[in-house]
């Protein structure tokens, strides 16, 4: 069930990566209904940004009735968000997304989550929720960035027993190379891949997984003007030639369905 709310801002916390923030808000509704892969759409009263902007759910705290999103400052909406103060209200619509990550069966697989950029927040949530359901299941998160200071979103993963592998283009930390370099050796029979991030990265991860007969779920982050299925502006072409609304038919697709 989608609700429109004026949620109360609990905190806006800057991260070490420049211009990155975590915004936590009160919403019993979102906290109890958001699954990994769901997103919310924020209308910032900036006057000029007329469309809502989508943000993946990053962490949920059902008992406190709170959820968080992690964002980097880019345009008017995120600028306004970064300036919000505790007690302000934020106009949100959610949870949105017709198909979210499906980690079932959770047990017996090696769940490999590959992310970059603002694809990391939903994977963080997914990794933690898999471990919460099945504490012994192996979960690896591979996070890529151009450089060490741009890596974000590993908050609490290690504590949850998740293996985290960093990859940087410049080798400033972790694996010197691309996320696919780190992924390749892990593509064994028990592997299941989930990816979210820049399109070229998802394409590469999807194709590599497919080549190794490994199931791969991709969460697309196309431009989403409405987020609720009414504008048909967010489409991705599927291999069957049909344009699919990523907001309500996705954002999560089997990698093999997408005509990259």
């Amino acid at each position: 069930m989608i609700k429109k709310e004026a949620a109360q801002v609990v905190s806006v916390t800057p991260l070490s990566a420049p211009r990155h923030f975590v915004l936590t808000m009160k919403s019993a509704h979102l906290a109890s209904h958001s699954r990994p892969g769901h997103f919310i759409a924020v209308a910032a009263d900036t006057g000029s940004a007329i469309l809502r902007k989508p943000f993946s759910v990053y962490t949920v705290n059902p008992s406190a009735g709170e959820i968080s999103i992690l964002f980097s400052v880019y345009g008017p909406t995120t600028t306004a968000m970064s300036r919000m103060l505790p007690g302000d209200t934020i106009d949100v619509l959610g949870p949105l997304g017709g198909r979210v990550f499906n980690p079932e069966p959770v047990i017996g697989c090696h769940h490999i989550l590959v992310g970059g950029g603002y694809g990391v927040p939903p994977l963080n949530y997914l990794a933690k929720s898999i471990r919460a359901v099945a504490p012994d299941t192996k979960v690896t998160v591979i996070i890529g960035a151009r450089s060490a200071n741009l890596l974000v979103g590993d908050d609490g993963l290690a504590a949850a027993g998740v293996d985290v592998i960093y990859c940087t283009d410049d080798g400033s930390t972790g694996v010197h190379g691309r996320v696919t370099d780190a992924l390749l050796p892990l593509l064994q029979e028990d592997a299941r891949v989930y990816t979210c991030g820049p399109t070229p990265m998802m394409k590469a991860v999807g194709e590599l997984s497919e080549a190794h007969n490994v199931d791969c779920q991709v969460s697309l982050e196309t431009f989403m003007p409405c987020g609720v299925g009414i504008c048909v502006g967010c489409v991705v072409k599927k291999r069957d030639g049909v344009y699919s609304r990523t907001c309500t038919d996705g954002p999560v697709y089997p990698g093999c369905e997408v005509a990259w």
Partner: protein
Amino acid sequence: MSTVKMTVQIGTLTMRNPVTTGSGTFGFGSETKDLVPLDRLGAVTVKATTRDPRLGNPPQRIAETASGILNAIGLQNGGIDDYLTNKAPYLRDFDCPIIVNVPGENPDDFAYVVERLTAAGAADAVELNISCPNVSHGLDYATDPQLAASVVAAVRNVTKMPVIAKLSPNVTDIRVIAKACEDAGADALSMINTVVGTAIDPRKRKFRLANITGGLSGPAIKPVALLAVWRCYNSVKIPIIGMGGIACPLDAIEFMLAGATAVACGTGNFVDPTLSLEVIDGIEQYCVENGFADVNALIGAVTAA
């Protein structure tokens, strides 16, 4: 409960209040069922339904501009069979008149779809989209009075439902087209469809839309839409459904004052899917506060500065 009379007439169609949705900006009514109970709307105007299914244009389909958006969806839809099978039954579950938006490439196309809708009782009115700028030849019918009239006449022949002609602002004088549609038997006009435009990404030196051109909508075009309504209000006798940039109740009031009998929330639904509900309540409240017992008293009530 207020005692304001909120019902308006679009030909033989009675709307319980003057607010409908802009075709293409509210899907087929089910997408936002959690947010908008259809039976609160004056009518629901659904997405374009064509004779055959259409894939639509490749993405990028929408770009943001100053106080507006450009769209080039390209009429993606499942065609009339899909509408009758999968969409109409859902819509019919609500006590809400259905206006189906019908595009076409020639008068026969329009007539075919309207005939099917009439036979199935799957609409309460049809809105002829002679003005979609995003498909080849989509515009011709709205830019030539004779062609526009030919479409209206063809449809008029096959249905008793109210026929609404949706006009384009991309013409030298919209009154000429309005008059031609009225004379050909249209029961009402709806205006405006989007304004043609484009946007360029200066950093990439590429057009922002795959289709190059798109239709501009949103608050940016409200001045253009208001003038179109005012001019047609003074040129034709049939009622007008006004739209173009409505983002709050007072915007809707402006349209009614300019001569619109009803209004449609379009792009504003993308920012706030519950906008139409807010507009309905806001119009009623405006009437109460300003002493109007009947919302119809607002129609064309603007005076010189």
